[in-house]
């Protein structure tokens, strides 16, 4: 009787672990198989645009921004961004002498800014355009359970809309609030730096539409690139939330200390 019981439990054990073993082995084989396919795929799809020759950086000069919202409107049109969601937006900071700060961004500045009535003496006021920081060590890619968020070889973070399951982990993981769940497609959506434009040698819609050149796109791998030069040499250029060690590739020039 005792022997019979042992046999039964061994059988059920085998039954349960058998499935698991199959999955583990299959997983291992898949990885090896994918590697062998790599060179074959690259031969099949040679890209006219060579992404290994680019390393994009973005620079915002907050002293220049006039808060007109042209960039937000251009981005909405260029990328079919749904209403009240933003791939880029502009914030307004109004700071009093005692450090009180009023921050607003009405509808992401899609319709510019109305005059603000502050009940204190304004020490300084300025605009800060924001967008995806395209971080080198980004938490949004790390948390994606299906490999939908990824970093391209030219330094951009993109979301594969066909792969994304809309779980929203990346939306929560992004420390800059740059992602949103698309209300119709139910997938994560974000700034692509207009990948369809920059790979054709054009500027992102926000950079091109800026009437005062407050937004600039640079390329670290291009010789004599002016924007990359400013970022490398300027003492008044910094990134947002540097303590998170995400290494953003979006830099801010003349950024006031209130901006976090």
């Amino acid at each position, binding site marked *: 009787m005792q022997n019979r019981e042992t046999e039964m439990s061994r059988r059920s054990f085998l039954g349960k672990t*058998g499935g698991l073993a*199959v999955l583990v*082995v*299959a997983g291992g*084989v*898949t*990885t090896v*198989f*994918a*590697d062998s*396919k*790599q060179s074959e*795929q*690259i031969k099949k*799809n040679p*890209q006219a645009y060579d*992404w290994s020759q680019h390393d994009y950086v973005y620079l915002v000069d907050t*002293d220049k921004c*006039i*808060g*007109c*919202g*042209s960039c937000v*409107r*251009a981005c909405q*049109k*260029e990328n079919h961004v749904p209403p009240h969601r933003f791939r880029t937006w502009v914030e*307004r900071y*109004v700071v009093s002498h005692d450090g009180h700060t009023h921050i607003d961004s009405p509808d992401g500045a899609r*319709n*510019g*800014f109305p*005059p*603000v009535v502050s009940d204190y003496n*304004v020490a300084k*006021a300025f605009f800060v355009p924001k967008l995806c920081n395209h971080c080198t060590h980004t938490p949004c890619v790390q948390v994606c359970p299906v*490999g*939908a*968020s*990824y*970093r391209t*070889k030219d330094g951009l973070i*993109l979301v*594969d809309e*066909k*792969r994304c399951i809309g779980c929203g982990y990346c939306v929560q993981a992004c420390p800059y609030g740059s992602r949103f769940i698309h209300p119709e497609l139910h997938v994560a959506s974000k700034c*692509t730096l207009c*990948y*369809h*434009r920059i*790979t*054709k040698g*054009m*500027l992102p*819609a926000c950079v*091109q*539409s800026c*009437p*005062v*050149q407050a937004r600039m796109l640079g390329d670290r791998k291009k010789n004599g690139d002016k924007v990359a030069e400013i970022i490398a040499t300027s003492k008044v250029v910094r990134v947002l939330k540097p303590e998170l060690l995400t290494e953003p590739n979006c830099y801010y020039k003349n950024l006031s200390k209130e901006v976090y």
Partner: protein
Amino acid sequence: MEHTKHIWRAVLIILLVPISYVVIHHIAVPESFGVYGHYRADSVKEFMDTPVIHGDRESCQSCHEKQNKELLANKAKGKHATVPCENCHDAVSFHVKPDSKTGELVKIEKMVIVRSYRLCAYCHEYLEARPNAFPQVKCKEHVISQDAEFSEEVCVKCHDPHNPSLKEEGKKDEGKKDAK
């Protein structure tokens, strides 16, 4: 003979491994996944192939260089030279598209012309947060100070949107009369 059952089970498990591999791989892993990294390589191509909506800063000139030579020259020497046409009008792809056979640009829609003061106000309404050197007015006060009547299209009565300065052409007084 009493072990036949066990042997069959072992064979079944050995067969199940490659079969499950093929099935799971087919269902769970997209074709181009893992080519460049832990993502679908075709996705990059799909992003690159997304249609472009706005042109570049020279797009309009290919047609309007001839059609509106004076207007473009006027804009180029004025303060609005750095403002792209598409900011105030509309994206070029809503206006023209390449012909499917010849590839030549064909007009599909009339370009938007906004004459409202609201468009000017996006940039030029006075805001504390704007850089001081940037030209800005309190729109309504400015209109009153110029003895003009406020209306939706009040700005363009004096200022040419393509070259808004009044100093160069001395048309300030002319504009005032018009506005009245």
